């Protein structure tokens, strides 16, 4: 009986630690793998990048481009030299350029950002299963929400975020790429929840026989304690955040453009929650389109582009969906009066 239990435990541990993927997940990985490279800074793998332009441009998180000399390594073993083409400060995403390499020479495909409403329908209850490609491994996770509102420090820029949850004990997740099972990019992990419950090491598993902790027959060759805990105990639950697919699509489109830089809609306003309904304008950036239109600090935005604004969160949600260059109507409450101004959406 004890021998059977031990052998089962060993089997589970080996399989678990490798995060063996289901057949559908493995198929999805095979499909996207040619478009992915590991970004290396020196001899260290600093992140992952995904092909977004057949001309040899890869998308990666800014955290992957810390070193002075960058290389990219494909799963086939091929190595290419990389350089930073541009960095989007708003989303912290970077565009990497290869030297002397083009995708047309290989059987690779650009990764299309998903349709905006594909993931919008996802909710906590209807989480979308995603593959998460990390620097050293691939794991599975769940896209539980794509409609959160986040604030990027220190710019205080508001963005919509996706929440992705997965079990991944003690592994760097920054810069990880999230794909749906049909091979579409849905996120680039940039932040993780700082919570003891979310980030604490896996719990102790009591009753582990010494066989699993110390090795077989007292000698070497058995499972390590951490590996055994990871196999049988509750694993670390990572709650990570990525920019939402809407914004990701915009970023990819911007990186593909001739300017190689995405443009994010902005009016030049910083808001906070008003005492009543509306977003109280805390500051107006000099030279912005809002300043040019006559919006002042202290005004309360009550409507933007026909959408009622209850607070600064609503303001962010509506602003994100605007297009640079459009002109929108802004309804403001200034003292006792309500005024309407037309403002051009800048970047």
């Amino acid at each position, binding site marked *: 009986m004890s021998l059977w239990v031990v052998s089962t435990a060993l089997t589970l541990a080996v399989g678990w630690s490798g995060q063996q993927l289901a057949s559908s997940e493995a198929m999805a990985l095979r499909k996207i793998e040619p478009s992915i490279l590991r970004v290396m800074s020196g001899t260290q793998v600093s992140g992952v990048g995904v092909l977004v332009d057949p001309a040899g441009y890869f998308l990666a998180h800014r955290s992957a481009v810390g070193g002075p000399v960058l290389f990219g390594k494909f799963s086939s073993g091929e190595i290419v030299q990389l350089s930073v083409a541009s960095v989007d400060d708003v989303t912290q995403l970077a565009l990497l350029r290869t030297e002397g390499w083009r995708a047309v020479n290989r059987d690779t495909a650009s990764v299309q950002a998903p349709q905006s409403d594909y993931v919008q329908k996802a909710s906590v209850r209807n989480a979308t299963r995603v593959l998460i490609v990390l620097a050293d491994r691939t794991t599975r996770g769940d896209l539980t929400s794509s409609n959160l509102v986040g604030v990027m420090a220190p710019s205080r820029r508001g963005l919509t975020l996706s929440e992705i949850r997965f079990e991944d004990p003690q592994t760097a997740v920054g810069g990880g790429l999230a794909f749906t099972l049909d091979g579409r990019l849905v996120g680039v992990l940039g932040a993780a929840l700082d919570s003891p419950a979310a980030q604490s090491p896996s719990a102790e598993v009591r009753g582990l026989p010494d066989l699993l902790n110390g090795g077989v027959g007292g000698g070497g060759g058995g499972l390590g304690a951490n590996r055994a805990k990871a196999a049988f105990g509750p694993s670390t639950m990572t709650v990570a955040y990525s920019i939402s697919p809407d914004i990701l699509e915009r970023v990819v489109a911007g990186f593909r453009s001739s300017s190689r830089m995405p443009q994010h809609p902005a009016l030049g306003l*910083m808001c906070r929650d008003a005492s009543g309904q509306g977003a109280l304008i805390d500051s107006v950036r000099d030279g912005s389109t809002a300043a040019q239109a006559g919006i002042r600090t202290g005004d309360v935005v009550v409507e933007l582009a026909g959408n009622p604004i209850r607070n*600064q969160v609503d303001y962010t949600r509506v602003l994100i969906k605007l297009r640079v260059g459009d002109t929108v109507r802004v309804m403001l409450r200034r003292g006792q009066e309500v005024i309407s101004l037309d403002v051009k959406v800048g970047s």
Partner: protein
Amino acid sequence: MKRNDEDKLIELAFGELTAEEAEQLRACASSDPKLARTLSQYSEMREGLACLKEIPEMQLSCDRLRDAILAGGLKEPRSIGWNWVGVPIALAAVAFVITLAVKRPLPTMPPVAVATPVESRDLFDPSIDRGTGPVAAVKPEMFGTIDKTPPEPVTKSIVKPSPVVRTAAKVRVAEGETGKPVQVTALDGGARMGLTAEGAPTAPLSFGASEPAATSNPPEATLIVIEPDKLQGIGAQRATEVETSSNVVMGG
């Protein structure tokens, strides 16, 4: 060996031959090693069979085994113990139950009927014939004047109090006339709570100091603030959930 000889040996071993026949056969067996060996085997068999009359307790036998089981009772159940397979399963089950319990709204307790001292009145009512059984040798006069009219049964609905620091409420049920509401008063300085006979509270139920009503946050009030510093070991920027967005400045 012939069958007939073998039968004779068996009869000899079991003492079923006459003395003369036994002596003749022993003489034959002494000269024939095979016969002697066979006779010896049958003799041992007889001795073994004789020993079966005193079967030891531990000798396996269907009847004895059954008797031993019935006499000894069932084996003690093996303690579950904390084995490394059951622990995570048990933890997951407990977490699941707790999650369900937390998500479920607290149920409102059903109306509770408060016992009335009607029975005590019956004990002192001399008009009630209790037969010849033992009765309490007490008289109503010993307890002063008692209103013999049964008060209306009071039912009160217990509602969930506000989440504040509560002290034990001491209540006093005032006697009331029939048909009139019974006043329930909190004695510990808490707010007065009035209840009608129907049980509907006429005043908010509170104990001690009450906290101001919580402002309702808009549905999207939870924000994720992403800081530039990175989490150690994770390699990702630090994200913090902010429950209320009131003081968060953001825009674009």
